[in-house]
Each structure stands twice: as C-alpha cells, then as structure tokens.
C-alpha cells in the first residue's frame, strides 16, 4: 500500500461523482485546447499566406480598416475602391514593381468563388506562376479564364469548359500549377474584362508592390504617399496587424474557456470539500493509525491533482479531436471571415499538450489546496468521533 494506491481507491469509490467532477475539468480543458490549437494553426496559416503574398508593400485606400486588410491575406473579395490612376502613378515610381488586384465574386455550381481581375503578364511574373495545362492569356483583354489549381480540382473543371460569369460565357484556357497560396482558390480574368462585366469602371481593389531595395522601405512608402493619397502598409505591418486582431479574438475565446475552467476548479473544490465531510471518520482513522497531518494533506491534494492530470489528458485529446472536427466548419461559417481563407487545420502541438496538462494540474491542485488544508487540520479525535 502506498499513498498513490490509497488515493486512486478513494477516487474510484464514488464513480458517479468522480466522473462528473472529471467531466467538468475535461470539458474546460477541451475547450481551452481546441481554441488554443485552432488559434495557433490560424496564426501559422496566416504567416504562411503572408509569406506567399511575396510582396513588400500593400497599397489600400486610406479608409480601409484593419479588417479589410486581413482579407488580403485570407483571400476575401474586396470592394473596388482605388482609382486605376493610382496604379499608374505608383508604377511610375522608380524601383517599384506593382500589380493591381480587383476582387469580385461569382458562383460555380452554386458555390461562391472569387474572381480576380489582373494584369495577365505582370501578374504571372510577379507571382511566378507556372502553367499546369493550357495556354495562358495571350492579350490583356482576352475574354477567357485561367483557373487556380484548387478551383480546377474542386469543381472538376477542364480546359475548354465554359464558366458563366455575370451571364457571359468564358472558356477555360489554362490551369495554374499549385502554389500553396490563396492564388489556388481564384478564377482569373484580365483586369479590364472584370471591370467591364461587373460594371465597375476604372477602379481596382488594392495593389501589391515589390521594391528593389528592401532596406529602404520607408523612402518608398514616402514616395508613394507623396504622389497619391493611399494607405501603404508593409507586409510585416500587415501581418502584425492581422495577428494582433487574431490574437485578441483568440484571447477572448480563451477567456471564455478560462471561465469554464474556473467553474470546473470550483467543482473540484466542492467535491473535495464534500469528501472531507463524508470521510471525516476515515481521516480520523488514518490519523489514529499514525498518519501525520501532512499525509492527510498529501492524500487530499493528490486526489484533486489526479482530477487535473486525468482531466487534462482527456481534455487535450478531446480538444484536439474537436478542433480537427471544428476547423472545416469554422472555415465555412459565414460569421468567421477571419478564418476563411486560412483553412485552419488543427495540428498536434506538443507545447500545447504540455502547457494544457500542466495548467490543468495546477488549477486542480490550487482548487484542492483549501480542502486539503481543512482535512489536515482536523484533529484525530474530532474526526474519529464524527458520526
């Protein structure tokens, strides 16, 4: 017999209560882990998207909020709000290579798909696209579409198929090689064609630019805002803005999970307090046969710690499973534009596992502290005389 044996036998004595108390901490931990795991996978995804943007500067209208800017990374359709004139002026600045984006929506097989109006050749060079099938745009006003690889795969589209956009048929002339970025999830048309069929006029959504000397970023930004009234953000700034926003969303969600955990902690404290009153006589017996008050303290603390350990382990497993199940649902839900392009794939992260289990143990031990102290303070006689 050792203390651990004694404790495990105690825990399993009242199976119903054990299970319910354990469920409390398990659910709290599962929520916590699921949110942590989704949050970190989204951060990773956004970082990857930002890297794939492969731009140094993102030029947007001055009235855009950070939320709009996120959409550049996540691949959302954005309003046309920069005059085309801006593009020409920026292009004329020495050392800057810029490409315009005009993003709109269409539907294929009743599912929403993004349509991007581009400068065919400039964009192909800028994004280093390779053609998997077919022949790329031959002219800047060709009335045809080039598909991102995911679009072609997901909708089973082939060369020669015809897409109807705004009531007009467009043949598929080429499919891009996979890039691993949001480029795979759009349908491309020449900019002027998109402006015409969507009746937009001489407007674009945003511009991304690459500079020839990245050590001199500030002077490029100054040069741009000097010639046009736009907001210029470096990709680093953009990413940090997005991550800050994502961070605050994550923090809020984790706070909610935290509240669940705190109530689970009170559940443990409550169970342990009830156990003291029920097991008063038992505490007295243990004291009478030689148990020190420190041993009683240890027994009760170990019991609550075990709730934390078991709840933590089960919670981590359930949390990861939940995040794997929830990730695609969240990605498709309309309420979560934030997560949209960044298909969050929950991944097994050892640091989350260790942090969560330790956290769960600490919470349980802390909530068991007061009951354990109470139990240890009982004198043998008052405990043993209890009926």
């Amino acid at each position, binding site marked *: *017999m*050792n*203390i651990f*044996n*004694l404790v495990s*036998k*105690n825990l399993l*004595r009242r199976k119903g209560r054990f299970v319910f108390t354990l469920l409390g901490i398990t659910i709290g931990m599962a929520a916590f882990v699921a949110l942590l795991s989704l949050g970190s996978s989204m951060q990773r995804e956004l970082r990857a998207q930002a890297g794939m943007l492969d731009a140094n500067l993102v030029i947007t209208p001055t009235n855009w909020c950070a939320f709009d800017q996120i959409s550049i990374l996540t691949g959302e359709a954005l309003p046309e709000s920069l005059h085309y004139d801006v593009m020409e002026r920026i292009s004329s600045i020495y050392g800057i290579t810029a490409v315009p984006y005009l993003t709109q929506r269409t539907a294929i097989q009743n599912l929403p798909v993004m349509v991007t109006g581009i400068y065919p050749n400039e964009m192909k060079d800028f994004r280093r696209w390779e053609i998997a099938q077919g022949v790329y745009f031959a002219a800047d006003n060709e009335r045809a579409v080039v598909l991102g690889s995911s679009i072609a795969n997901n909708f089973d589209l082939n060369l020669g198929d015809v897409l109807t956009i705004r009531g007009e048929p467009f043949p598929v002339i080429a499919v891009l090689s996979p890039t691993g970025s949001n480029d795979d999830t759009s349908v491309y048309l020449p900019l002027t064609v998109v402006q015409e069929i969507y009746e937009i006029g001489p407007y674009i959504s945003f511009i991304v630019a690459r500079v020839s000397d990245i050590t001199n970023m500030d002077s490029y930004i100054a040069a741009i805002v000097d010639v046009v009234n736009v907001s210029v953000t470096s990709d680093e700034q953009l990413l940090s803005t997005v991550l800050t926003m994502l961070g605050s969303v994550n923090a809020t969600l984790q706070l909610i999970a935290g509240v669940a955990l705190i109530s689970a902690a009170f559940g443990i404290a409550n169970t342990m307090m009830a156990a003291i009153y029920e097991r008063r*006589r*038992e505490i*007295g*017996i*243990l*004291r*009478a*046969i*030689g*148990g*020190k*008050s*420190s*041993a009683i303290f240890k027994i009760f603390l170990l019991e609550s710690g075990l709730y934390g350990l078991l709840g933590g382990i089960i919670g981590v497993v359930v949390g990861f499973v939940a995040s794997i199940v929830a990730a695609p649902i969240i990605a498709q839900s309309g309420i979560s534009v934030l997560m949209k392009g960044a298909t969050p794939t929950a991944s097994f992260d050892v640091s989350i596992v260790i942090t969560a289990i330790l956290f769960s143990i600490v919470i349980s031990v802390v909530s068991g502290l007061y009951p354990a102290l109470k139990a240890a303070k009982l*004198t*043998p*006689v008052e405990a*043993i005389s209890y009926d």
Partner: protein
Amino acid sequence: MTNAIIKTENLEKIYGKSTIKTHALKGVDMEIPKGSFSCIIGPSGHGKSTLMHLLGGLDKPTSGSVFVDGMDISKLSDNKLSEIRTQKIGFVFQFFNLLQNLTASENIQTAMMFGKISPKAQKKKAAKLLELVNLSDKANAKPSELSGGQQQRVSIARALANDPDILLMDEPTGNLDSESEAEVLKHIFEIHKTGKTIVIVTHNQELARKSEFVFEIRDGKISDSPFKAIQLGS
C-alpha cells in the same frame, strides 16, 4: 511503580470554550506497568474514552502530563504525536473503524505505510497478522463482507501492524455478540502473552475481573486512591 510504560500526572481535560465548559478529566494520576493487562471501567460519560484518547496521544490534555515510555507526550507537536502513535501505540475501536473501500489486508498495510514499511514487506506482514487472528482466508474481503467479530479481529491485526508496545482498546467487544466476543478476547489474551501492554476501556465486568489492573473512572477522576489500581480479580 517503576516500570510504568504509561503514566499520567494530574491530567485534566476541559472541553468547550467560553461559558459552556465540560470538565471531562479532573486530575487523573495513574501508572500502567509495562506488559500489563489493564482495564478502565466506569459509567458512560465519565471520561473513560477521553482518558484513552489522551493516553494514546489522539488528543492533548488541558493541563497535566502523559508519559509514554518516559516521554512526556502532552507537549509534543502534532507530527511527533503521529510518530508515537505509529511506533508505540496501536488502537482498537468499538466500531472497528476499518476503511471501507480497502480489503482486510490493505487496511493493515495502510497502518504499515505510515510506519514507512516497504509495500512488499507490508503484504508479507499483513498476511502473518491475519493468520494470527485466524483470518488468512479473508485477506481480500472488504469490511462489508466480514462479520462484526471478523472486522474487530482485522482491526486488532491492524493495531499490531507496526509492532507497538501498547494496545489501547476502546470497548473492543462492545459491539459484538457473545460468540464473537469470546473469539476476540481469546486473541487479545494471546497477544498479551507476547509481552504487549494492553489497556482496555470496557463495561465488561467479566473482562475487568480477568485483568491485572483496573482503573475505575467516575466524574473524571480515578476513584479510590489515585496511585492504586483497584484489583478486582481474584
């Protein structure tokens, strides 16, 4: 008495604070010789159990001293008292006080766990002790599967777990039928023969008659002369 293993000096115990106080023991002086068989008798509510709790270090006196093996245990810290209970004293209670979720063997082993005996040695010794009380076949039985007499024998085996010099028993047969009582007493007498000091709180006059020393408690005092046990036996 020079070879007293337990000795008390002017032992007082007052329960309660403020206005309502119960004077449970009023200056008890007694000596229990090493290896003796003693009974503490007296009417209910006159301080027998309180005295036993103080002798065994389960409680502390309001004033006065308790010496166990020459050591004044009334001034010891809680931890030290626990050590004394582990090493020198074994308790047997009227209602057995076994841990219900543990088997007979595990109950005995738990006491040895506090005596810092290795789990392997615990099992071996628990088996021997169960053999001593004729319960080898009940090692894996839970208390609820045992009769009252059997539970009390397990409780006696547990009291012997750390090989203490003194066994303090609070009405060990008070809750048993006569057949079980005889069986339990038989074991207690056998254990006494091994040299253990046995102190029994009891209402059983028969048992008192068979013991070497009898201390009668009335109104929190040892009746008759404080230093002289009442010899009831023939």
